[in-house]
């Protein structure tokens, strides 16, 4: 019994919560902005079938961050460097889905291996090491926060500008190309934005759990709507709720935020699946009712 009480009080401890909240105000703002980025870009990650690519990019981003940690330079910058290299490699070499997956499969373990090498050479605080893989927004200092938010705003603005052609090029590339859209340039630009989004998400949820921010919210939204406007909106709401909710809940126990973020986002996904499933079953029933003597 005592063990389990300890366990829960370690997970959720809300003494001095007000003071804690003041300390992490910046983190919450950053978390919300990253949620917006993740929710928005996730819609395209899903419709371009690039969940695996996100994972691949995040591992190289991890390697970049680990290298930066070892060299004593800005971790976010290192992370962005790794991300961009991976994103462009995948974008240039992997135009077709099958090629892309094999390139990612090759890049990913290499990135992870490099990252582990750099981390084992690093003699500093071990919390920093673990943070890269599993995320720890509180460890990000305020100049880095500013950098994160600046990049997030850049990605958001980029996506807003190219939203419609990017949608066209993502869901219907052949027709988009026939209509004179620069599909290749659009795809590469998207990869750059995706690389940036991945790099900044890693600072919050860590390299291993980036998918919870860039894929799960959009996947959840797509279970309940097909509207091209409602999908990204819901996805953003889900992502922001996951990140901010995760930060708020993790404060009490002093644990990493990522398990909270991933659990909230997974719970939202499950709920959306149930809603989508019930709707499908209901829809099928009413369709049967409309045409009872189809045979």
């Amino acid at each position, binding site marked *: 019994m005592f063990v389990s009480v300890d366990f829960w009080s370690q997970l959720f401890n809300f003494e001095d919560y007000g003071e804690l909240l003041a300390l992490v105000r910046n983190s919450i703002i950053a978390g919300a902005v990253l949620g917006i980025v993740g929710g928005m870009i996730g819609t395209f990650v899903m*419709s371009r079938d690039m969940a695996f690519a996100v994972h691949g990019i995040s591992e190289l981003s991890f390697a970049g961050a680990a290298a930066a940690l070892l060299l004593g330079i800005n971790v976010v910058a290192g992370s962005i460097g790794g991300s961009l290299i991976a994103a462009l490699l995948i974008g240039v070499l992997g135009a077709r889905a099958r090629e892309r997956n094999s390139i990612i499969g090759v890049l990913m373990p290499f990135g992870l291996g490099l990252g582990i090498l750099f981390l084992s050479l690093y003699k500093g605080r071990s919390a920093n090491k673990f943070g890269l893989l599993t995320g720890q927004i509180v460890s990000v200092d305020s100049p880095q926060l500013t950098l994160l938010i600046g990049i997030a705003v850049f990605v958001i603005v980029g996506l807003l500008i190219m939203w419609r052609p990017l949608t066209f090029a993502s869901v219907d590339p052949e027709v988009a190309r026939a*209509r004179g859209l620069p599909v290749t340039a659009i795809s590469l630009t998207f990869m750059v934005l995706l690389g940036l989004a991945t790099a900044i998400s890693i600072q919050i949820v860590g390299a291993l759990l980036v998918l919870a921010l860039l894929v799960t919210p959009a996947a959840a*939204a797509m279970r309940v709507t097909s509207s091209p406007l409602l999908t990204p909106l819901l996805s953003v709401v889900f992502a922001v709720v996951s990140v901010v909710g995760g930060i708020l809940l993790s404060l009490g126990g002093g644990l990493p935020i990522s398990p909270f973020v991933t659990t909230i986002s997974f719970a939202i996904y499950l709920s959306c699946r149930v809603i989508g499933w019930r709707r499908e079953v209901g829809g099928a029933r009413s369709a049967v009712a409309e045409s009872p003597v189809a045979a």
Partner: protein
Amino acid sequence: MADIASPVLSIRDATLQFGDRTLWRNLNLDVQPGEFLAVLGPNGSGKTSLIKTVLGQQQLTSGTVSLLGNPVKSGSRSIGYIPQQKLIEPGTPLRARDLIALGVNGHKWGLPLGSRALRSTVDTLLEAVGATQYGDAPVATLSGGEQQRLRVGQSIAGHPKLLLCDEPLISLDLHNQRVVSDLINEQRHALGTAVIFVTHDVNPILGMVDRVLYLAGGKFRVGTPDDVLQSPVLSYMYDTPVEVIRSRGRVAVLGAPEGYGVHDHLEHHVDDRRAHR
């Protein structure tokens, strides 16, 4: 000078070779506004390559292609394109009306915020292709025939001068083949759009075709269906005795060499089964 309308598409001395294999040599072709041209021929005869050439995605070995008097570039706003049927991925966040809207403004920067004008344009297009009923349904939940109707709507949304259709009937059942080809024909009359229609089976569109471009064995023939779909003509092209049989308004080509494709509608049923599996 302007006795006859200037051609929408003009192909001059066009030769396309892949390595030492010649798909077509010294092809000359003018497509007039409102004309319905069927491109026929066996697999690998360069039908799709011709479409790609017009779209600026395939360089000619020699010769020129001009669209509305200008050399072709990579894609064009003046072209409507109906690709080989590929079903939209499940989960794609698009409704039927959104797929059509991409044909109206998918090339413009910015957010897909619909205006009233866009909505009414899309409604008109949905009605034109008989898709009003499922206008708000997610595209991925629609059948192949329904998606292909939307493709027609999408392709005419930008008032194209030229409609390129690459096997748009493949994997559709006979009813939907008729519906989709009728729609394409209606729209070319309504808009005066020229149509280039690539197909391996001319029968569903035989009644609408003005001219046929037949590609086979590195050679080509252009003319009315009656002129081209003749035993001597095709025998010459295939370099082997080929028999063209016409019966009850249908055409069947018998004896075309293996690997040159089969022109019987049986092939459709094979495709059908493959697509539904």
